[in-house]
């Protein structure tokens, strides 16, 4: 579905991505793990058109999307849930969701949008309860649900999730992860960036490990969860004692 070849991206003169290639198949959850500044978010932002790439190719459903503007990328079927939610605080929950369907309002798909709202309320019953509440007053978990719901309103085929568990309590993280898993079952393909490597690998099919802008390892989630390098670097297992600690989630 998504195929990235030899992506190089710079912030000014600093190289953020160095020859990154990866792919996501239809119906998969793929996660990108790595330390801060490894380039995970940069990959998402480059795919969604927020950042321009210097070199490389991005194919979505066999057509080239590199160089497209963000709204064109959304139109092609890719929606991004940005890091830190970035919902519109002063607006109500409903208004936030409706904004997610902005491109579709122009296409006069009002009926379909109503149906999608219903679908999202089934996925996140909490949002229906708080329909008219000002989004800024929602809890962190609810805001994350709203951010995902808003992205879904564009009817994406591929959802880009940036740190969905950031700043959330362990129990809420579990909820969000379960929701992401359920989302996939509704037919959405997911590319996710996570600091919480363990929680994200548990629900994903495959993963890529990034280090300073390069992919250093890839594999099935099971392989990565059992990999000693990954355990040491990202699962918080100490070099000396590999005991199964009780990490978050």
């Amino acid at each position, binding site marked *: 579905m998504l195929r990235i*070849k030899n992506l190089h991206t710079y912030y000014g003169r600093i190289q953020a991505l160095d020859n990154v290639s990866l792919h996501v198949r239809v119906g998969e959850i793929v996660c990108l793990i790595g330390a801060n500044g490894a380039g995970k978010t940069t990959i998402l932002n480059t795919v969604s058109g927020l950042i321009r790439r210097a070199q490389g190719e991005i194919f979505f459903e066999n057509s080239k999307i590199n160089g497209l503007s963000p709204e064109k990328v959304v139109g092609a079927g890719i929606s991004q849930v940005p890091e830190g939610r970035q919902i519109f605080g002063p607006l109500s929950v409903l208004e936030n969701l409706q904004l997610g369907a902005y491109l579709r309002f122009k296409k006069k798909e009002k009926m379909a949008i109503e149906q999608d709202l219903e679908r999202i309320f089934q996925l996140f019953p909490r949002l229906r309860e708080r329909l008219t509440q000002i989004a800024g007053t929602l809890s962190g978990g609810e805001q994350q649900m709203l951010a995902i719901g808003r992205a879904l309103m564009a009817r994406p085929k591929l959802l880009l999730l940036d740190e969905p568990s950031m700043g959330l309590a362990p129990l809420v993280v579990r909820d969000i992860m379960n929701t992401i898993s359920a989302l996939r079952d509704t037919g959405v393909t997911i590319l996710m960036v996570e600091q919480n490597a363990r929680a994200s690998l548990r629900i994903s099919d495959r993963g890529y490990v990034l280090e300073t802008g390069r992919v250093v390892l890839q594999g099935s989630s099971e392989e990565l969860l*059992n*990999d*000693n390098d990954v355990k040491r670097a990202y699962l918080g297992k100490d070099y000396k004692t590999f005991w199964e600690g009780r990490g978050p989630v």
Partner: protein
Amino acid sequence: MKFWNGENEQMVREDLEQVQLERLQSTLNRAYKNVQFYSKQFDSLGIDPGAVSSVQDIAKLPFTTRKDLGDNYPYGLFAVPLRDIVRISPSAGTAVKPVVVGYTKGDLKVRDTITARFLTAGGVIDTDIVQICLNPGLSNWGRALKEGAESIGASVMPMSHMSTSKQLMAMEDYRTSVLLTTPSYAMHMLGVMEVMNKDANSLALKAILVVGEPLKDKTRRLLEAAFFVDVTAGYGPSDVMGPGIAFECRQKDGLHISEDHLLLEVVDPNGGAPCPPGQAGEVVITTLTARAFPLIRFRTGDLASTMEKTCPCGRTLARLTGITGHTGEVLTIRGVKVHPAQIERILKVVSGAFSPRFLIHLFKEKHLDMIEIWLEMTDAIFSDEVKVVEKALTRLRQQMFQMLGLEARIKLMEASTLDDYAAPSGGVIDDR
């Protein structure tokens, strides 16, 4: 069962190439970061691993040779800390020092998968009784085959030191259904069966899978007719990888390469330029998933060519013709790779500091490769006492077996007889 990894063995070409590219790039990143040998080599040639943007770009990278493996003995080429290694697997190699290959748990799983593909393609299923007959020089492969067959769920008789007649007895009594061996040992078994007045009707064999040596058409036909079985072959360079990195399917027309785990090139052994399909050249292998022991453009010394058309069996994995020969001086004896210099070193050790003149004579006896060292009789070896000479020769044979895993015969010769062959010391007379 037709495939072991149906999905991976039948990948659409474009998807496979994407997977290969991703894995190649991360392999280069890991090797550059973790293995000094590779980072030094890349830096000295001004190569940036980040500049490899297609599988074909691999041609820009330098080769790794058997000498490099020997120079970095024992752990120099490992890309993970020793604590992550679960198997240390030495083999004689062809340099002064042996070659030590390490495997992580994950690496062993990958090897099992690749081996299981080879076995499944040859018809092995979980209800089979598999008997492994290899000589000690191929004991690493014996283990790989055992573990691969076990992962399929077959019942495995691992390799052992039983004589051929005992092996045949076991084959008959235990109702062995699959024999894993070398082509020459299978032929040897046939010969022994004739002497024992046995025929294949008393056996339950349904397939023979051969490794270690090229399988000639004639040998295949003979074995298939005599044992009433299908015979398929697997390929691997015996010192560094598993036995079935390329394997025949029941079409028996070329060996499928496990391309999702290995990148295989065929290059001109002299210039190193890539050979087009159909043109024979040296097989060069790059690992794509190995964690502990990544190899970048390893020159195997084996000659073969790639095939262009896809196989009717359904696998999309590209095919290699059988091995047609070897480059340079490396000899393959019963599947074991031997360099004449190794034999010279053993002779030196046994005879003291000086280096005696010798020739290596290779021939077939009852279908088996035999190696005979023709050693010049000099004062240093020769003694009036037969006992002393005998002792030296016994030691020599022991050393050969220990170092190479091969039973060698030693023949003492007059200097003038050796002169007749007009070959330099260490020369090879191949009568096979």
